[in-house]
C-alpha cells in the first residue's frame, strides 16, 4: 500500500450544539422530541459543542457531564468549537477534538464566526423517471428537470423542482413543518409537508400547470402562486 493511502481527507456533516442552550431547562426535552421524529438520523450522530459566549467549561469534568447528557439522547460529543484557550485545554484533557474556528486562531472581527455547516442540498439534474425514489436526508432536494408520474421525491427539508412536477413530493419528511415545496409547474400526484398531504384530486384545479409554492400554514397545506 502506498504511504499516501494511510491518511485520507473526508468531509462529514456534524451537528453543532450551542453550549449556551444547555442551560435552558427545556432544551433536552425539545431535542429529545426532535430525535424521536427521525431517530435514524440522530442515532450515534457526532456532535460538536459550540462554546461561543459561555465562560465556564474550563474543567474537563464539565465536558464529561455534557458527554453523559448527550449520550442519553443517543448523541456522541466529538469536539468543541469557538473555545477560549483555557476551555480548549480542558476539552483536550477530556479527550475532545478541536474544530475550527477557535478563539486563538479567530480574528477579532465581531461576530464573524463561521456559520454552522448548513446541511447540503441534494441536486438532481436528470429527469426523475416513473418508479424512481429520491430521498434528500437532512436537507433540501433540488431537481432541475421534470419529475414523471410515479416518481417520488422525499426531503427532510424543502423540495425545489425547476420543471414539471408530475410525481409525488414529500417535504419535511422528518417532521419539519416549515419545509416547503416549490415547482415551476404543478401537476403533482401528491404533495405532502410534514405528513399532511393532498392528492391531485384535491389540488385546486386553478393551481394546475402553474408555478406554485406549497407551505403548511396553521396546519393546513396552502398552495400559492409563485
Amino acid at each position, binding site marked *: 500500500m502506498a504511504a499516501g493511502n494511510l491518511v485520507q481527507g473526508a468531509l462529514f456533516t456534524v451537528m453543532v450544539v450551542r453550549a449556551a442552550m444547555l442551560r435552558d431547562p427545556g432544551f433536552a426535552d425539545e431535542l429529545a422530541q426532535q430525535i424521536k421524529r427521525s431517530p435514524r438520523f440522530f442515532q450515534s450522530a457526532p456532535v460538536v459543542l459550540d462554546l461561543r459566549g459561555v465562560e465556564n467549561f474550563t474543567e474537563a469534568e464539565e465536558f464529561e457531564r455534557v458527554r453523559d447528557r448527550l449520550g442519553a439522547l443517543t448523541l456522541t460529543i466529538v469536539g468543541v468549537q469557538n473555545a477560549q484557550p483555557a476551555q480548549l485545554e480542558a476539552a483536550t484533557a477530556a479527550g475532545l477534538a478541536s474544530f475550527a474556528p477557535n478563539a486563538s486562531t479567530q480574528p477579532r472581527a465581531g461576530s464573524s464566526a463561521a456559520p454552522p455547516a448548513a446541511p447540503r442540498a441534494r441536486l438532481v439534474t*436528470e*429527469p426523475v*423517471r*416513473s*418508479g*424512481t425514489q429520491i430521498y434528500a436526508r437532512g436537507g433540501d432536494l433540488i431537481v432541475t*428537470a*421534470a419529475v*414523471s*408520474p*410515479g*416518481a417520488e421525491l422525499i426531503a427532510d427539508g424543502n423540495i425545489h423542482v425547476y420543471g414539471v412536477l*408530475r410525481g409525488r413530493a414529500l417535504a419535511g419528511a422528518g417532521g419539519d413543518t416549515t419545509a416547503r415545496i416549490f415547482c415551476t409547474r404543478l401537476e403533482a400526484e401528491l404533495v405532502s409537508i410534514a405528513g399532511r398531504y393532498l392528492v391531485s384530486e384535491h389540488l385546486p384545479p386553478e393551481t394546475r400547470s402553474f408555478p406554485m409554492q406549497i407551505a403548511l400554514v396553521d396546519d393546513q397545506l396552502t398552495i400559492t402562486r409563485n
Partner: protein
Amino acid sequence: MGAETDLREDKPIGPAKAGREAGLAKVIVITSGKGGVGKTTTSAAFAAGLALRGHKTVVIDFDVGLRNLDLVMGCERRVVFDFINVINGDANLNQALIKDKRHDNLFIFPTSQTRDKNALKREGVERVMEELKQQFEYIICDSPAGIEHGAITALYFADSAIIVTNPEVSSVRDSDRIIGILASRSRRAERNESPVDVHLLLTRYDPARVAKGEMLAVEDVKEILSIPLLGVIPESESVLRASNTGTPVVFDENSPAGRAYVDAVARFLGEQREMRFLKPERRNFFRALFGRA
C-alpha cells in the same frame, strides 16, 4: 419446403465485417415496458432496415416462452435450435442462427417456446453476446414486456435503446419507467460507462385521432419523456398484413409504416430526415374514386 434447409448455414457465417475488430458491434434493445405496443414489429422492421442498408444484423427474441419473432420474420418452420439451447451449450450459435431468405445480411435468432424467462442466465447471455459481436455489426434484442427478469436481461447489455411507445398515457408512463431502469440497471450504468443512448419511436400514430384529441400528440409524448425522437410510425393496415405474412414491413415499399421505419433506420444511422405522416392524410380525389390503393 425442402429447399429451405439449404439456407441454414452450419458453417461460420463469413468474416466479421466491421464487427469486433473495430469495436463497432452495437447492441440495440427494443423495449417498452408495456405489451402490445409493437416491439416485435419494430425489432423485425429495424433489423431488416439495417440489413437493407448493408449492415450485417441479427435479431434475437428475448421473449422466452412467448416466441413470436420467428412468425413476424416468417421463419417459424425453420427453427431447430434456439437461444436457450445455445445458452445451455446444447447447440452452437451457428446451428441456431437462421439466415433470412430475403436478405443476406439478416439473421434471426429464435427463442424457446417451452421454457420460461428464468432460463436466461446472465453469464450465458453474455457469452452469446460476445460471440455474436464477432460476427455482426448490429445485434437487435427484442425485449419481452414488463420489467422483470426477461426484460432486464434484454436491456442489460444494450449500447442503444429504442423505446417503442404508443400515443396513450399508460404506454408513456411505462416507457418512462423503462427509461429509468435503463439508466440505473443496464451494464453501462453498473460499470459507470457512458449511458445507454435512448431513442423514442412512436408507433400506431393516427394523426386524424390526434387532431380530434383522442390520442396524445408527438409533442406531448416528447415533452413527457424528454428523449430524442427517432421516428413516428403511422397506424397502418400494412403492419398487420406484414406480421401475418411474416414479412418485415420495411420490405413493403407501398406501406407508409414501412417507409416511416426506413426513415427511422436512416436517422439512427445519423442521417437527417424530415418527419413524415404527422398530419391527417388528405383524401385524395383519385383514391376516393378508385378505392384504396
